């Protein structure tokens, strides 16, 4: 107790001088007492603390100290982690009836500024009849300036949360990679001839990044699908798979407004090689890329798109050399053996056309279905928009003209009375006159019966009779 007095500085002696002669404490005090008490207190505190910790850790596993992976309870967790995988690639060759053999499909879709089309695309996904749990989805989003990623995440999460287990897909991955492309994605610059080679090469690069990161040893098939496909059969995967070809594409058309003819071939990248094109290819330099569908390169190739017959057999096959990328179903073994979308000039072609060429080069079958058609979204080109504006203006002009005409007619009607109306008026006037005359003639009769009030009260009957 005295010690405290000193520590407080309230003692009679100066603080520094408490040296040699001070004997503290002045009387015997068992020093163990406060210590003992303290010890007991600490023991109690310790026991209580221990119990508290045990209880808390037991009931709230989240509060358990983390960050370290050595531990008694963590070892079973550790053994839950599997690091070794074994696959036999001969089990994933891809067959005509994949849905019966539970063959997995990797669905790849490269995206850029695609937010407006995503809801439609996910609608298509939900409608696919191929077992959804066998479909793995992989998206590569690159250089997007709109909300593609956030929207995509939302839609995928919706898909995952679907309570129906049959509607749930397999692995879903979003790969985000910016390549720093300067090429515009709007319709006009996308399809301009000069931009084609560069654009095709960067598209090819994106496709390769997507595929190389998403392809797994479990996949038997790979399906490439553009998000801006508007109409496609729900059974498209099975329909294409049934042909049991290494690479297969449907015909791709697009609907048009009536004034443009109603419909039009869209994907001109599916074609058969021609002698002219081969001769042309020999004259071009190493890095040149032939792009189909432009007047600059007259290749005279038979295009899958132009061979369509709306009433033709949808199962009819046609051997092709270049393929379009809107909807490609390929066996995974094609990609495993190294075929990819050349981002350089491969036999004077790049991207999907080069893919077709390379697949052919490696001895795979590449086939198109001329009479099996899917429909690409119609996006009006700048010319179309101008034309539509003109049409709109014309329509407005016509409407205005009609309106003016109508107003004029009304005015004419208002200002000049038509003779027929005059006639009517005259007629009614004449009738009135005639009636008046009759009434005058009847007046004396009425006055005769006037004393008999009952007749009058009964009403018009007698009068009516009179009038008749």
């Amino acid at each position, binding site marked *: 107790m005295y010690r405290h007095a000193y520590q407080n500085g309230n003692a009679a002696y100066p603080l520094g001088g408490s040296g040699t002669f001070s004997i503290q404490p002045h009387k015997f005090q068992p020093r*163990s007492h406060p210590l003992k008490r303290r*010890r007991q207190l600490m023991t109690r505190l*310790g026991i209580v603390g221990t119990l508290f*910790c045990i209880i808390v*850790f037991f009931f709230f*596993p989240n509060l*358990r*100290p*983390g*960050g370290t*992976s*050595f*531990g*008694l*309870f*963590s070892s079973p*967790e*550790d053994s*839950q*982690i*599997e*690091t*070794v*995988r074994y*696959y*036999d*690639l*001969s089990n994933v*060759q891809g067959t005509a009836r994949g849905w019966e053999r539970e063959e997995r499909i990797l669905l790849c879709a490269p995206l850029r500024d695609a937010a407006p089309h995503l809801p439609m695309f996910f609608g298509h996904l939900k409608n696919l009849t191929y077992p959804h*749990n066998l479909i*793995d989805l992989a998206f590569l989003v690159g250089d997007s300036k709109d909300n593609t990623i956030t929207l995509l995440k939302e839609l*995928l999460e919706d898909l*995952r949360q679907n309570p129906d287990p049959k509607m749930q897909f*397999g*692995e*879903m*991955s*979003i*790969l*985000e990679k*910016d390549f720093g492309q300067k090429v515009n994605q709007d319709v006009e610059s996308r399809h301009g001839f000069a931009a084609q080679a560069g654009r095709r090469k960067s598209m*090819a*690069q994106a496709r*390769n990044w997507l*595929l*190389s*990161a998403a*392809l*797994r*040893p479990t996949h038997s098939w790979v399906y490439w699908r553009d998000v801006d496909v508007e109409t496609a059969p729900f059974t498209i995967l099975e329909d294409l798979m049934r042909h049991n070809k290494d690479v297969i594409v449907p015909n791709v058309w697009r609907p048009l407004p009536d004034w443009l003819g109603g419909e039009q071939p869209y994907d001109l990248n599916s074609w058969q090689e021609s002698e002219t094109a081969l001769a042309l290819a020999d004259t071009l330099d190493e890095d040149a890329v032939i792009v189909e569908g432009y007047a600059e390169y007259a290749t005279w190739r038979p295009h899958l798109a132009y061979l369509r017959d709306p009433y033709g057999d949808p199962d009819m096959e046609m051997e092709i050399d270049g393929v379009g990328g809107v909807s490609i179903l390929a066996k995974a073994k094609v990609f*495993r*053996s*190294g075929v*990819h*979308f*050349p*981002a*350089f000039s491969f036999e004077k072609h790049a991207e999907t056309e080069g893919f077709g060429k390379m697949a052919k*080069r*490696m001895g795979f079958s590449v086939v198109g279905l001329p009479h099996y058609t899917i429909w690409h979204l119609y996006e009006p080109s700048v010319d179309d928009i101008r034309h539509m504006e003109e049409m709109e203006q014309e329509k407005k002009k016509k409407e205005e003209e009609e309106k003016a005409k109508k107003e004029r007619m009304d005015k004419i009607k208002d200002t000049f009375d038509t003779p027929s109306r005059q006639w009517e008026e005259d007629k009614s006037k004449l009738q009135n006159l005639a009636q008046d005359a009759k009434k005058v003639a009847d007046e004396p009769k009425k006055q005769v019966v006037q004393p008999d009030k009952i007749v009058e009260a009964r009403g018009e009957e007698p009068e009516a009779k009179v009038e008749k």
Partner: protein
Amino acid sequence: MPTPRSLRRTNPITFVLGAILLFGFYIFFFSSPSDDLPSTSTNGQQKKTASNALSPPSLPFRKPKSNNNNNPPPEVVHYYMSNLTTSRDPIANQETVLILTPLARFYQEYWDNLLSLNYPRSLISLGFIIPKTKEGSQAYALLQAQITKTQSLPKGKRFASVTILRQDTESPLQTQNEAERHKISNQKVRRAAMAKARNSLLFTTMGPTTSWVLWLDADIIETPPTLIQDLASHDKPIIAANCFQRFHNPETNSPDSRVYDLNNWVDSPTAKELGAKMGKDDILLEGYGEMPTYRSLMVWMKEDGGDPGKEVELDGVGGTALLVKAEVHRDGAMFPAFAFYHLIETEGFAKMARRLGWKSWGLPNYLVYHYNE
């Protein structure tokens, strides 16, 4: 008088120590692995555990809790591939390496050498492709025994993941014996099959988090333990070590080494002329007297006591010990199984990478050693 007291009294420090000990016990008992939750967003640098077996083979995964079909569908995983780096200092940047090996025969020395690499194993994924032959099955059995041994080690000491593929393409040659394997008539078929095997392995095991791919042949039995760091430190898209073979020289009756991998070369005008005269599907081969190409081979550029950091730009590369940035493969550079500019497999790969704008380099004084049959 003071002796019994000091025995009875307890220093408060004891309590503090006791408390620390107790706390330590709690951590020990109750700690759980940090990566308890499946990764919802992997930013490329984080090496997490995937929630299911469908995840990229370059990541470990959690066993499903039960085998019934009520398992919830896997999480949507977002990979930020723009953040992937391939730098001079791969360990500091936590860059993952995928070591790929086409395996026809298993050599214990190969595995021992692999284990001697001092790159952090938690950043290494392994991939093997084994032909479906009797020999392949034997190799698989041996390999599996070693893998089980290594992968049952605790987390930091085992590889992040191991993928073993059995080849779907028929092996054109029944024998892997060296003399038969190197016959010129067999070369094109053999190397085409080899190219397909390499591509199958590459495109199925490369995940979205892989930064580097190291091609290491199954018969490479001796490399410096810092192989990965050394090759990566040059920061080249494609870089090859010089492959030699140790043997017992009967002339001097002492251990010696001789050249092995002839596919690392700088092109020559002669070879180009030769190629120009060839048919579309013919290939140029290196190291055959019937076909003198006069290319400068990297094996002959080795100087005794030369600087191991010396770089040479190459036009063709071999696959014995080759470090490639994953983006080169992702851009589409693969091993052509057909005549690509009259080149095939790894040599064709260098050419294809060149067409995509990636250059190949070699280290003539940095040696790795091949098994001697």
